[in-house]
């Protein structure tokens, strides 16, 4: 299965239509990355950039901020904000000179990011790049994997184009340099993949098709498409066929009776209809699966719909297992 390609780069930027499960998939990818690396001490970092505290809620940890914290063995999390990123970068660039002290402050960042709107995105991805390049004293990369919960597909192109646009606008200085190295990272398919998340539904698929084109024309590499919330088939093939013709309401009532439960005809018909509805939804899903395959030339990786009151560690674990089954079949 080609979805093994998923783990090729060290930076995965997760995007998709609003609400399809980008954050859940990003979190599951992070869990999978850690499990995959077991046996060898490694580190994965899950990164949030819009300050929504999605992950601290999912993993039930204290709120995330600019400090990288290990919240599960080998799994780190942080929330990048542009201001902290800028002041850290300026410190590096200028040393601890006066300028950077002066510049630190939200008004300055507000001002600069308004004057050059793409700057904020450069600062955010710039931090990811710093983490990607960081090395330990023994020369090995500090992180094996960095997973970024990125803006939705509607905003992703502007987000990724920002560094390039900034290099056109700003010709000297620290930001220019930062933007250039960020562009280098984003455009290198061995270092970075865009990870699209979609659903087997018409609108998300249409948006995925558009995004693949738009992203590729930016020059970034798009990884296997993650198809989320796939409804598992509840009947085997034979069962589905039986339900579709052989098993009428009377037979259903008879069978249920054998199980020791009396069903009136209306209830038997309704029960059968529940099954037929499920089959109709599966058929729709299958149509969508074919449509996706026909319109996007990328391997796909399907994740099941997971029922649960609140999406937390248990549900994410199920998704992580599904990811590993697809990407590391021999495990």
């Amino acid at each position, binding site marked *: 299965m080609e979805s093994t390609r998923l783990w090729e780069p060290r930076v995965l930027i997760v995007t998709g*239509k*609003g*609400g399809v499960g980008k954050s859940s998939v990003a979190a599951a990818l992070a869990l999978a990355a850690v499990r995959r690396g077991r046996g060898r001490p490694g580190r994965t970092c899950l990164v949030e950039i819009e300050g*929504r505290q999605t992950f601290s809620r999912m993993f039930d940890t204290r709120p995330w901020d600019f400090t990288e914290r290990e919240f599960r063995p080998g799994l780190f999390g942080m929330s990048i904000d542009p201001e902290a990123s800028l002041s850290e970068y300026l410190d590096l660039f200028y040393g601890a000179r006066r*300028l950077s002290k*002066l*510049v630190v402050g939200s*008004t*300055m960042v*507000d*001002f*600069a990011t*308004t*004057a*050059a*709107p*793409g*700057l904020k995105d450069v600062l955010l991805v710039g931090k990811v790049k710093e983490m990607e390049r960081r090395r330990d004293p023994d020369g090995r990369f500090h992180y094996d994997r960095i997973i970024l919960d990125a803006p*939705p597909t*509607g905003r992703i192109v502007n987000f990724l184009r920002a560094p390039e646009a900034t290099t056109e*606008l*700003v*010709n000297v*200085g*620290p*930001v*220019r340099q930062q933007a250039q190295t960020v562009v280098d990272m984003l455009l290198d398919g061995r270092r970075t993949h865009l990870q699209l998340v979609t659903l087997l*539904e*018409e*609108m998300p698929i*249409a*948006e995925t098709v*558009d995004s693949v084109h738009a992203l590729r024309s930016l020059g970034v590499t798009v990884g296997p498409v993650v198809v989320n919330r796939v409804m598992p088939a*509840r009947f085997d093939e*034979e*069962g589905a066929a*039986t*339900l579709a013709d052989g*098993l009428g309401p009377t037979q*259903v009532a008879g*069978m*249920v009776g*054998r*199980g*020791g*439960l009396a069903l009136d005809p*209306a*209830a038997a018909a*309704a*029960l059968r*209809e*529940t*099954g037929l509805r*499920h089959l109709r*939804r599966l058929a*729709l899903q299958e149509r969508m699966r074919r449509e996706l395959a026909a319109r996007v030339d990328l391997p796909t990786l399907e994740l099941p719909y997971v*029922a649960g*009151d*609140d*999406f937390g560690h248990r549900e994410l674990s199920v998704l992580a297992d599904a990811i590993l089954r697809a990407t590391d079949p021999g495990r």
Partner: protein
Amino acid sequence: MTVTAAPGVRPTPAVPARAAQATARPRDLTAVVRGRRLIVCTGSGGVGKTTTAAALALGAARRGRRTVVLTIDPARRLAQSLGLRALDNSPRPVRGVEGLHAMQLDMKRTFDDVVERYAPDPARAARIRSNRFYEQLSSSLAGTQEYMAMEKLHGLHVAGEWDCIVVDTPPTRHALDFLDAPRRLTDFLEGRLLKVFLAPGLAAGKTLGRAVGLGTGLFMRAASRITGSQVLDDLGGFFQAFEGMYDGFKRRAQSVYGLLQEPGSAFVVIAGPEVPALREARFFLRRLQHEGMPTAGVVVNRTTPPPDPALAGLDRGAVAAAAARLDGGVAERTTAQLLRLHLDRVDVVAREQRTIAAALRGLDPPALVQVPLMDSDIHDLGGLAAVGRYLYQDG
């Protein structure tokens, strides 16, 4: 086991049209599509705002009202929903529905039009439009889209040719952005941020650009180190060219804000049955209350329809026990699966209803409608009409 009907849930109609008509509740949006002049659909991304907006517009048009639906979504979803190939920046009649028009907001074009219309002279308009900062502002700056939606709304409103305007809102992170972004943009255009730093020695905007270019002051020197001086020159040039136009921007934004508060307007808050979308809806409902905006109701989209009433009397334990006993041939196996499928459905429905009730606790919106997850995707007028049957009674 029983499924208690939660507010807003309608039994799955066997014959959707007639059944829905018969069971339509007073807490749906019939009065809204019948009488309100402006309907704003809000909610977090991906919950079905566009579909709901289009379905509401269809309902208004079917009542003989001249209706336009303004969508702001770049994914051309409404175009698909309405069977239109392309939407440009002005209303186009929807074929097959008398009185219904649809359009998609083109943010850049709207901004260009506004500049064209309100600049003191053509030379100034040209100067603004060729400014590099303007280019960024008009095509990408967060908040511009929301502001332009308001401009367009203002334009449609003052044109006076519509009985009903339905607005879909941009796919923002927070539903609240729709209310806040225009104010942020007008504050920015007013140059408040800049003035704070440039005020000393700068009386008029005329000298602003030069001052920025010259990099007076510590702050500006630091800023130009970060952004490069070209960026600040562009910014200065922009403000210089824009001088005198802020007031109009602000006035129009305020006028739309006032319009939104009128009783003839209606906010419809849309969510899915999941915790994050409902949490967002709750925030927004409270905010609307706080701002004195007319909340028309909540639509929870794509809920799992409750099981048929014929199954309501079944005891959960008995069903599970029967399923466990059936493991003979294919017919038994399949029947056992049917029983389990039913139990799962009962669980899902109960969970969704718990989540909805918790999110709306203490808020009591005037209308609460649940639109079930349909068996097929919605991409045509038939699909919109099917959604409409849950939103309002047939016209």
